[in-house]
């Protein structure tokens, strides 16, 4: 299960970036939450965002599929490029963006429907025309929860344990066959065994998807990710509050063994603050 030899310097090996952030600054109301982020997220790999609370890593993650649109007063400057297109261009349909870039949240949030319907719902509203039973089985298998649920597909999604619910939510995200899956601290509400199952599953999933994960657990970042971005909070220039920024973005091994920034070194070795 331990990290399967992350490729060093993936971008230089001809891997195309899947998502590109160019000078992204995100503000809530009038105050900036995160400033000046440049980043190239590689395709087919797992990218982890780490950093202290309030550094804006979740904010940046939500910006990648325009979930921030739902938050009143949230605005973004800069460009987020996916498939050669700026996601924040005026003619982009956010619903279509979220169909291509799925999301799994911190707290498991299955719909109050049956396990089967939880999976089928997303597929149906996305106009899926194939064999629904087969899609449900395939999605549940990919999320490593088929064996636990195959006999009770008609039962409510709420009847599952927390860890199972989270895998159900991942299966639900997979069912619409997105290109990218965003995960916002998917294991923070789970016990170590469920966490392990989800990490194993992520290693399987990265064969077909690009994954971006926010985590507070640095061991988790080491175990699952190929690339790691370290976000930090710095006092604003005018001395009024704090703003997040991307301190360092490099292959996971570099971040944890030979970071170029002192702040990264302090954070990953637990000498922060």
């Amino acid at each position, binding site marked *: 299960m331990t990290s399967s030899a992350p490729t060093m310097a993936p971008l230089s090996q001809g891997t195309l970036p899947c998502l590109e952030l160019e000078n992204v600054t995100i503000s809530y109301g009038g105050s900036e939450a995160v400033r000046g982020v440049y980043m190239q997220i590689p395709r087919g790999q797992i990218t982890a965002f780490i950093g202290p609370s309030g550094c804006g890593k979740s904010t940046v993650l939500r910006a990648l599929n325009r*979930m921030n649109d739902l938050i009143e007063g949230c605005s973004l400057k800069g460009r987020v490029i996916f498939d050669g297109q700026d996601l924040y261009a005026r003619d982009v349909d956010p619903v*279509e963006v979220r169909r291509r870039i*799925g999301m799994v*949240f911190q707290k498991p949030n299955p*719909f109050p429907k049956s396990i089967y319907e939880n999976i089928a719902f*997303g597929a149906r*509203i*996305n106009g899926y025309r194939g064999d629904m039973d087969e899609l449900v089985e395939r999605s549940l298998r990919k999320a490593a929860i088929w064996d636990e649920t195959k006999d009770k597909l008609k039962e409510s999604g709420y009847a599952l344990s927390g860890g199972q619910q989270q895998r159900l*939510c991942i299966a*639900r995200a997979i069912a619409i066959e997105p290109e990218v899956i965003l995960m916002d601290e998917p294991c923070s509400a789970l016990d170590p065994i469920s966490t392990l199952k989800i990490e194993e599953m992520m290693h399987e999933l990265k064969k077909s998807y690009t994954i971006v994960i926010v985590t507070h657990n640095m061991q988790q970042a080491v175990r699952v990710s190929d690339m790691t971005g370290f976000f930090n909070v710095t006092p604003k220039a005018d001395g009024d509050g704090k703003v997040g920024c991307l301190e360092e973005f490099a292959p996971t091994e570099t971040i944890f063994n030979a970071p170029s920034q002192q702040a990264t070194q302090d954070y990953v070795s637990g000498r922060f603050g």
Partner: protein
Amino acid sequence: MAFNSSTSISGSALSGFQRSSLRFQGQLPRNRWNLLYTCLAGVFAATAVLPLVLVLAYVLVKGGGLISLQLLTQLPPPPGLDGGGIGNAIIGTVVVTLIASLIAIPVGIGGGIYLAEYSQSGKFAQFVRFGTNVLAGVPSIICGVFVYGLIVSTRVFFDQSYSAMAGGIALAVLMLPTVIKTTDEALKLVPNELRWGAIGIGASKFVTIVKVTLPSAFTPIATGVVLGIARAAGETAPLIFTALFSPFWPEGVFNPIATMSVLIFNFAIMPYEAQIALAWAASFVLVVMILAANLFARWLGRFAQA
């Protein structure tokens, strides 16, 4: 700093407080006041429930004995004669309440959805919320006068003045604030994670509301709607000069119609025994119907928790 070391049971003689026995002492002032206020609260609570129990018991005794198949299926007798029933008024109440529901439920739920899901808590939404609260406090007779002026006196419906339709509209105005408020509150209780879940897999806002948010708020909304209907079904004032009354079977929704509350109002003050008895019987039926609606609402509420 004087402290009484004789009552101090622990060694902490330096404490600034008196330490007394752990045993309960009824004669202490705090315990006496406690008892007094507990009794007082009990008396007020009993007084508050008393009217409810008395009304139910009185209506049961006076009207319960008259219940028969004839009562539910026949027309009221002409003044001076015996027998007869309140069949037309029962049908009338159902018809008028149904019209009110058909108007108030779609408008109210739609308004509640707008407030909770679409409005960005701007000026307009604040105005609608404030207006809803004001409307909820408007006396029911004002609703009746309003609909009288708007529909009855202007004869907009096929040149008819008093009609079941006018009565239904008056009741709908009464129901509307309840339905809007319960929908608004119920949708606000749906956790945001659920909306994000749907939007995160590419659902549009419309699909999210119709397929995920509304179903999970169904029970509180349904409960509120049933309570609103029960409230409207018992209203008299807005019906007196909108639906009026009719001693005959209903003749369509654009004619005057009998309703139970107006029947009670009319018959209870008549100088004839038979009519007064019918008023009591109608009171009993009306109370039972409203009680049943409330029980149904509670049952719906339990349905959700399961």
